[in-house]
Structures are given as structure tokens and as C-alpha cells.
């Protein structure tokens, strides 16, 4: 067990709180950047997909995990990012234009949704965002002059300084660097007044108002940041897929993203990555299992959503805090080894809140 000796307030502002953090997170980033040295093409592709999921999940986590606004339509922002990126590349622009434009247009989309959505909450918000995703999917299907409609659209490879990124390991490193930057940005927001205001809005809108926080503004901010990050993820998804059709961005993708952050651990940055790895491996696992199972089971339509749904129900029933929550428990079991009590993490009773004001 580690006991921190704090001598100034600045220590609490550091991202890495102690030597252990610096060592392990440093090692993790090194290993991630070294992955192309160890694995070959297929696994690098799978790893890239997990990183893209993580980026999209990070966007959704800002909105749902930290600000408490459930979105069932985040695939829409992936779609906007993907098509914007592909269109700008097709016009001959480099990735330096296409990627920021993907983030920007997605952000504008987020702003458009946020202005009405900031007045809604709970199930109404979920339905509104779901409707938005359906509209975007439909528009992508009908706007054939830009998106190629239902026939689909080829995506050019990313171009940086005139250099075309063809190799899968190059794309992997590109995605990884942007993901690291995006994660740092989110961590920075979380340790700033804005991040605290987001959590305040999630926990109690009434008292956040009484403390001078403008919940409307915070929600709009969360929507735009979330949409921008998810839009970037969409741009990379376009490269990963290399061929876009509107069907990719259906309701299942939105649900999968939501599933990911709930499985990983809602309201934690760690949860995003745990969830992304789990969902990514699960997809690979299911497709491998499908081939080895008898075709009467493996060939069943809708086997994937069934497995995802079953896992979601299981997690909510047995470990609502997700994989990260379970990890915290395991870690403190090891830290406090002989004296750990299971009751340490038992939920205390919640005291009444002023429901009358809502």
C-alpha cells in the first residue's frame, strides 16, 4: 500500500500522482507505440479498430459519463466525421485540412443537437439523439452527390506533407498519436473548472445553478467537445473501413458505443479504454467463433446484438460500476490484503434530494 506524502497543492493537479503512475502509464504508451514492431498486418488492423472505438467512446464519455446526458445517436457524429474527411480528401485536400474539418463539422452538428437537447433530459434526450442519428443516416443515403448514397464511397488514404499513408502500421501510429492528444485534452478539462462543472450538472442541476454554474452552457459545451472527438474518430473509421456506406452508421453502432462506456465504467477515462478493448476483442472473438461453430448456430442472424445485449444485462446486474469499478475493488483487495472487507464498496444509502424543484 502506497501512502502519499503531500507537501504542496500542486501535487494534486498533476496527472501522474506518483512514481508508480509515471512508470506504468509511461510504459503503457511506449508499448502501444511499439506494437507495430511486434505484430503483423491483421492484428495491427484490429488494434487500430480498438483505438478508433476508444476515441469515439472518449467523446461519448465526455457527454454521458461526465455530464450525464445520455446519447443514443453518437453514430451520427461518426458519420459526419467520416463523410467530411472522405469528401475533403476526395477534393484533393491533405489530412491537415480534412481532419480538422471533420472535427469542425461534427462539432457544428453537435451544436445543432445541443441547443434543443440541453433543455431535455433522460429518456427524452435519448429519443431525440436517436432521431438525430436516424436523420443523419438517411441524409447520408440520399445525398448521393457527396456521400455516394447507398452505393457507397471510396475513401482515399490519409496524406500528410504530401506523404500517403498506405501501411496499416502507419495508420495505427497516426490514430494512436491523435488519441493520446485527445485523452490529454479530456483529462485537462476534467481537472479544470469546466470539468467540475460538468460533474456538478450530472449530479444535481439545481444546486449547480445555485453555485453559479449555467447548466445549459455546460451541456452545450459537453455536446460540442463530445461531437468533435467522435467526429475525429469517424474520420479515422473512414480510413479503417476504406469504403463508406450509410448502413455502417446505424443504430447498432450507437448502442455499441454506449455499451462500451457502460461496460468499461461510466464516468471514468479508464473505463473508455477497458470498454473499447473488450468490445473490440469480443467482435473479433465472435467472428472467429462463428466460423468454428456449426452453421446452424454460427450462421444465425443477429447473433452479435444478442451477445452484446446479454453482456450488458449481466454487467448492469452484477457490476454496475463496470470493468474499471471491478478493477478498483481488486486493487484495494491487494493493497489492504489481510484486512480487506467486501463491505468497503457497499453502496451507502442515498439521502433524499429536493425532487420538488424538478
Amino acid at each position, binding site marked *: 500500500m502506497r501512502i502519499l506524502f503531500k507537501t504542496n497543492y500542486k501535487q494534486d493537479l498533476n496527472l501522474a500522482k506518483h512514481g508508480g503512475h509515471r512508470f506504468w502509464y509511461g510504459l503503457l504508451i511506449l508499448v502501444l507505440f511499439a506494437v507495430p514492431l511486434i505484430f503483423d498486418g491483421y492484428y495491427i488492423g484490429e488494434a487500430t479498430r480498438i483505438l478508433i472505438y476508444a476515441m469515439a467512446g472518449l467523446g461519448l464519455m465526455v457527454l454521458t459519463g461526465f455530464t450525464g446526458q445520455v446519447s443514443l445517436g453518437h453514430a451520427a457524429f461518426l458519420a459526419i466525421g467520416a463523410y467530411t474527411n472522405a469528401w475533403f480528401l476526395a477534393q484533393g485536400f491533405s489530412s491537415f485540412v480534412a481532419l480538422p474539418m471533420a472535427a469542425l463539422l461534427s462539432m457544428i452538428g453537435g451544436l445543432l443537437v445541443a441547443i434543443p437537447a440541453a433543455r431535455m433530459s433522460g429518456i427524452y434526450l435519448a429519443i431525440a439523439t436517436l432521431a438525430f442519428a436516424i436523420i443523419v443516416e438517411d441524409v447520408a443515403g440520399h445525398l448521393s452527390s457527396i456521400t455516394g448514397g447507398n452505393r457507397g464511397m471510396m475513401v482515399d488514404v490519409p496524406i500528410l506533407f504530401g506523404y500517403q499513408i498506405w501501411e496499416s502500421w502507419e495508420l495505427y501510429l497516426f490514430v494512436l498519436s491523435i488519441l493520446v492528444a485527445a485523452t490529454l*485534452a479530456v483529462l485537462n478539462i476534467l481537472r479544470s473548472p469546466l470539468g467540475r462543472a460538468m460533474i456538478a450538472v450530472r449530479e444535481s442541476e439545481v444546486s449547480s445553478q445555485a453555485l453559479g454554474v449555467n447548466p445549459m452552457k455546460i451541456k452545450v459545451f459537453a455536446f460540442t467537445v463530445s461531437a468533435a472527438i467522435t467526429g475525429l474518430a469517424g474520420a479515422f473509421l473512414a480510413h479503417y473501413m476504406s469504403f463508406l456506406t450509410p448502413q455502417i452508421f446505424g443504430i447498432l453502432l450507437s448502442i455499441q458505443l454506449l455499451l462500451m462506456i457502460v461496460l468499461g465504467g461510466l464516468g471514468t477515462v479508464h473505463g473508455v479504454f477497458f470498454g473499447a478493448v473488450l468490445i473490440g476483442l469480443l467482435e473479433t472473438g465472435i467472428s472467429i467463433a462463428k466460423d468454428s461453430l456449426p452453421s446452424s448456430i454460427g450462421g444465425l442472424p443477429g447473433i452479435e446484438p444478442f451477445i452484446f445485449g446479454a453482456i450488458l444485462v449481466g454487467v448492469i446486474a452484477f457490476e454496475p460500476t463496470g470493468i474499471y469499478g471491478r478493477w478498483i475493488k481488486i486493487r484495494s483487495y491487494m493493497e489492504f490484503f489481510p484486512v480487506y472487507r467486501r463491505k468497503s464498496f457497499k453502496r451507502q444509502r442515498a439521502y433524499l434530494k429536493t425532487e420538488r424543484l424538478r
Partner: protein
Amino acid sequence: MSLLEIENLSISFGGLKAVDDVSFTVEEGSVYAVIGPNGAGKSTIFNLLSRFYEPLSGKLKFANNDLLELGAKDIARLGIARTFQNLELFEHASVLQNLLVGRHVHNTQSWWRQLLFTGSVVEAELEHRTKVEEVIDFLELAHYRNQIISSLPYGVRKKVELARALCIEPKLLLLDEPSSGLNPEETEEMGFWIEDIRRDLNMTVVLIEHDMSLVKEVSDRVLAIVNGKVVAEGAHGFVQSHPEVVSAYLGDSQ
């Protein structure tokens, strides 16, 4: 000079007149208590002051500002802080995070600076932390600093909510039943703190309270309301022995 002026304030929910033509003024630097039986409309007055409710009629003035021109989110910036009767803490956040949200009105950093966590943000954060630590010292919360609210006992939560309101550095503090759910020792402690808040931090306090010994101990003036109407206003002794107040609490003697 009076800091808070409430004139002919009324609000009704459906057919119920929750607050009916209430007027009172609170002098700067005083402790003002509002008493009355359950459902008299005391908390509704606070919620009107916080601008959660729109009054039917009346005027709300705070240090020459018309509160009715402002929204709920602007009240704290003027220097009015409040606590809630049933606690409205951010439960899945630590005590420190809760108190730092209290510093939100003093934040001047732009969003992109926060995104990059620039040097000026670090400086501002350290400043906020220092202020928060002063409040933690004042209310003796150091032991709970890094604990999550949902793991704290009720009495401590009550203190954290008071601390969060103090972090705003307000001119006026609205306390909605500060002693409810506290044991006698904690209630006595709360009385000392209210005294200290007035004397050392120069804040004006308006409190809603049922514990008459606490009211007697701390308040300069007392307002009694029954069924939304003012029945008596004045010094503690006068209000407590007022026949209408007595009959509201104990019933008529027949």
C-alpha cells in the same frame, strides 16, 4: 443599510397560496431567522430568492440589484449562497471537488486555456485550492477532504454543504434548516459556526430553523410565517410569545 429587501412577495401553486404578501428586510451583518410550522412556505421563500420559482407578484432586491431581472444561475455571482433542506451535494464526487465547484463563480479562465491547462489555469487552481483549504480549516473538514460524499455520514454532509456555500465567499448566506438531522452537540456547534460566519467572515445570514434554542442563540430578528402569511416579526422574545405564533405551533387553548 438593508442588504436584502423583500416586498409583497406572493406565489401560488394551483389554488394554494404558498407565499402570500410577505415583506421583510435583512440588515447587513445581521442574522435573520425565519420560523413557522411545516408547509408554511419558508423554503419557498428561499427558492424564490434562488430564482427557481417565478413569483406571482412582489419585489426582490439585493444590494440594489433587482433579482427578478436575473436567472437562477446569476444569483451566486451577486454574492448569495445557499444550502438545501434535503442536501443537494454532488454525491459521486469528493469533498474537495464539491468545494471547488463553489469557486466556479470566481473562474475567469477561458475554455481553451482549460483544455491546454496552461500556466494561468494552474495558478488560478492553486488560488482556488488555497481558498477552499481556508474553509476546510474553518469547518474542520480536513479529515474528509478526499472522501466521496456518498460514503460520508449525514452530519458531515451537512457541514460540507455549508462549506461549499462559504467557498463562494458570499455576502448573504441562506441556510435552509441547518440543524435538521443533527444531534444536540452538532446543533450547538452549528450555532457557534453561524456566529463565527457573521463575526469573522462578515456575512449576513438568513436561516430557516425549527430548533428554537438555536434561533434564540444566533438570530437578531425573527420572522414567523404561517400558511404563507407573516404573523409576527421582531426580536426573538417578542415573536416567540406572540399569541398567533403560539397557536400555530401548539394549537388554540380551548
